[in-house]
Structures are given as C-alpha cells and as structure tokens.
C-alpha cells in the first residue's frame, strides 16, 4: 500500500511518468476482457516470460506490451509458425497527452487468418522505441510518418527523415494534441507568406485594391 501511495505522491509532485507508469495507464484505458482461446493465448504460449495485457477491441484482440519487449515480441509474431503474422497492415501513432504516446501495430496472418492489434505506450518526455523495419520492410514509411507527426524516435530506422512534411520542418509535430489547428495554420501562414514574397506572386497594386475593397465592404454595411 505504502508503495502505491508513494507513487501517487510522486505524480502529484510533477515527476515525469516512467515506462512502467505508461504501461499501467495503457492497461487502465482498456477494460473489455478477452474471451479464452483467442490469439492472445497463443502469444502467451509462445512467449511465456513476457508480460502481456489483453483486451477485446471492436474487431480485433488488443495486446499491450512494454516498450523493452517490442523487438522480441514482434520478431516472434512474424517468425513463429503458430503466430505467423507476415503482414503488417498498419502502424499508427496516437497522442494520449499526459497518458503517453501510443504506437499501434495492426497485424494479419494469411495462413492462420487471424489478426491482432499490438499496442505500446511511451512517455511523452522520452519517445524512443525500436524500429521494426528489420522485421517488416513495409514498416519504413509508416514509421517515418509517425516520427514526423508525433516526434517519436524509431531507433535503428535506416532513414528517419520527414516524409510528408517539408524537409526542414523537424521542430513541429502536427498530430500532437498540443498543436491545435490554429497554430498549424500560423506556421503555414509564415511559410507561405515568405514564399509568396520571394517568388513575387503578389501583383502590383494588390494592397491598394485590397484596402479599397475592404473600404467598400464597410460602406455597404453602413
């Protein structure tokens, strides 16, 4: 009991959540229990020494693992014949704010026809995780996208440069919840503004015209 109380006090004192904390939060966020006999049991059978938490999603079984188990679990998911998840469907990031950054792997097996959702949470202050590009080559662009959109660092990725965003835009992560839409428009405004001036797309006399039309509008209102 006293340990838990101490932990709570730590959080109140504003200390950064640790790896174990975010794993606990991840479990707290999923309540629906999994019925026995699903792919979750196969995972536990293949990797008995890994801590799994499981929940039932709307379509797939959700399995939650800690960050340090990612390389081992995902490697086994692909290579073990009982699991045989040869197809990485999708990899997405989700920002849960103070409850951590989440990475979601959607896997599917063509031989067993089963699918699973694997989830990992990372603390906001330390968003490092092992890359899975060496397991599925198809993870390459998905990881690059998650990296630029959420600021997650995939260790071991061969080429972690922005994919969809401009090459020099490494200081903003648009899909994070602390970047509201208005702010993104501001950055864009600054960027576009510069470009327009440099290229010279503003026609001569534009400002006068704009001022005049604004004046007309006001007169009309009166």
């Amino acid at each position, binding site marked *: 009991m006293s340990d838990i109380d101490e932990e709570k006090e730590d959080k109140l004192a504003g200390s950064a959540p640790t790896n174990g904390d975010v794993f606990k939060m991840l479990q707290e966020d999923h309540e629906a229990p999994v019925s026995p006999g699903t792919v979750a049991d196969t995972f536990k059978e293949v990797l008995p020494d890994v801590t799994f938490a499981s929940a039932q999603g*709307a379509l*797939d079984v959700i399995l939650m693992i800690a960050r340090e188990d990612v390389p081992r679990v995902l490697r086994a998911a692909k290579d073990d014949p009982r699991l045989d998840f040869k*197809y990485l469907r999708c990899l997405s990031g989700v920002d849960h704010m103070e409850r951590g950054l989440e990475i979601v792997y959607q896997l599917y097996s063509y031989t067993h*026809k089963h699918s699973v959702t694997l989830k990992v949470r990372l603390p906001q202050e330390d968003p490092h995780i092992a890359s899975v590009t060496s397991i599925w080559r198809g993870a390459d662009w998905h990881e690059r996208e998650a990296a630029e959109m959420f600021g997650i660092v995939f260790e071991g990725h061969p080429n972690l440069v922005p994919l969809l965003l401009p090459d020099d835009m490494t200081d903003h992560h648009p899909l994070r919840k602390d970047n509201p*839409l208005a702010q*993104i428009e501001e950055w864009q405004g600054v960027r576009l503004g510069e470009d327009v001036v440099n290229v010279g797309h503003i026609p001569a006399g534009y400002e006068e015209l704009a001022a005049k039309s604004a004046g007309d509008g006001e007169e009309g209102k009166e």
Partner: protein
Amino acid sequence: MAKRGKNRLMVVEEERDLETIDINVNVGPQHPATHGVFRMVLTVSGEKVVDVVPHIGYMHRGAEKLSENADYRQALIFQDRTDYLAQFNCEMCYVMALEKLAGIEVPERAEYIRVILSELNRLTSHYMFAGAFGTDLGVYGTVYTYAFREREFIQEVFEEITGDRMMYGYFRPGGVVWDVPDNFKERVRAVCEKTRIGINDIERLVTGNEIFVARSRDIGVISGEDAIDYGLSGPMLRASGVPVDLRREEPYSIYDRFDFDIPVGERGDSYDRYLVRMEEMRQSLRIIEQALEQMPEGPILPEKLPRRLRLPPGEVYMRTENPRGEYGIYLVSKGGEKPYRLKIRSSCFCNLMALKKMTVGHYVADAVTILGSVDIVLGEVDR
C-alpha cells in the same frame, strides 16, 4: 593508311580515360508520367536505373488532423478527397468504422445500394487505370479515350444518384442519404451491358498487342513473399500470386452473399497487374448483377438515428478492399462528437513503398511503366 590507323588508336586511348558516372534524373513533381504531384529521383547508369528515391507529400492536406477537428458527419468529406477515383469505397470504409463503434444496424436495401455503388466505382477506377497505363506505355490517346468514354457512362449514373461528379458524400452512418431513383436497376443493368462490351473493346485493343506485351512483360517483377513483406495489397499482391481479397478473407457488409472469383497473376510483373485488374472488372460486374437480383425494397436508414452522432469510447481498425488494395480507417473515440484520432491506412501509400524494389535494374522508360502499374492516386498517398 598508317596515319588513319594511328588516329583510331588515339581515340581508343581517350575512351579508356573517360570516366563513367551515375546521373541523377529528377522526374516530377509535375510530370505526366507521375499521375499527379509525385516526384522520384532516378539514379541512372547509362540507361539502367540503379536507385530510386520517391518524394511524396506535395498534396498533404492534413486530412487526419482536420478530421480530429470536425464532427463525424463533417469528417466524411475527407474520405471523398483521399482516393478521389474510388470515393464510394473510401466512404464505405469510414461509415462502417462508425457503425462498428456505435453499433448501428444498416438496413438491407442500403447495404445493397452501397455494394453496387462501390463495385461500380471499382469499374470506373480500373477504367482510369487502363487508360493511364496505356498512356504510360506509349499508346497515347487510344486506350485513354475509349476508357474514358466507357467510364463516363458509369459516371453519369453516379451523377444522377448523388448530384455530384466527384465528391459524392452519399453514404451515411446507418445507410445512405437518400434513396436511389426508381429506374436504378434498369439503369445499372444497361450500364453493365455497355461495360461488358467496353472491357472487351479495351482487351481487344491492347491485351494481345505485341508492343504492349513487350513493354510490360517481366517489367517490375515482385515475388509473393516480397509483396507481403512490403505490405502490398489489392491487385498488386494478387498479381504476385497471392490469392487474397478482403471481400473473401474477412467478408464485410454483405459480400459473403455473392459468388465471384479472385483473379491471380503468375509472374508478378506489370502485365499481370494489368490482367488482374481487367479480370477484376468482370468479377465486379458479376457482383453487381447478383446484387441487383437480390436487392430488396425497404428503408435506407434505420428508424432511430440520432441527429448528432456520438460514439462511445473505443477503437476500431476497419478495412475494406478498395480498387487499389486494403483501405483502413483506424478510429479512436474518447466519447463525444469528434474522432480523437483518425488514421487513414492508404493502400497506394504502402504499394508505393516497393517502387525501388521493382524498378532497380530496369531501363528508365520502364520506370514509368512500373509506376503506372502501381496505379497511384496521390490524394490517397499524401492524404
């Protein structure tokens, strides 16, 4: 004589001193062969491609972030704007994700309307592919104009039903927004007849054509294992000999009621991708005809539908078989009227990842063929 011989020797000596270097050739972003604003940098050694670096993101509009700031009804419009050649299929995936989370039952008639429209949309999309692919191979105009004429017949049906040519916004969580016109069945049957002739026309024009085959046979080969490893899906995967179709694999909506075949390629090259798509069109026609037979009368929306849709907390990864492959919507809801996170798993985004694997070792002109055979829509790649 002696002098001439000496000169010739000198030339040979000079040639020996010449260095050969690899050259970077930039293709795009505005280039007719890139099917939109896509750029790739080819490193060529002579005529052979030794490296490809694709650059995407020129059409990134932040559909995922915008969806987080719109309510569920408003976020539908971004689905029309991702894959703008298969809008119904994308809308279908999105509304089904909402229905899964909200637990909404869809009336039978609405399911049939949706399936018929999605399959018709697959036809228009593959027509577009056939035309554009012909252009990539140098059959400029011929296939393109025929494919577009045929596509237009179906496009007119869409226009009559939805009132729009491109951004339909016709599907709703729970069904469709309004019922189809009274002459729907006859109209679609007539269009199917025309399409059957149209597919044959295009096949007669190009499928056996010697030049067409020579330019696409054994170009851009990818094996079944590699295709799975790169996460390819749809016709790209099936052309490599993997008989996987989500409509059969994890039947969604009412696809388990129809009888259709899954065409599979043998070599995994550009020509096989073309053949698979042409055969898929015939299978789509089969599905449409069966659906028209079975389509019942009845309501098109459930009776009790909230005016403002609120979803319970939860998440779902909904996937559908789009013309270009697996289209996925990963939707996270924390309650309320807006999605907390909406990730769009785009099929050609993943298919494009294998571009380097397919292109390296081929001629520069073949790079265009291979890119054409991937059938990318940049709106969906960049989102």
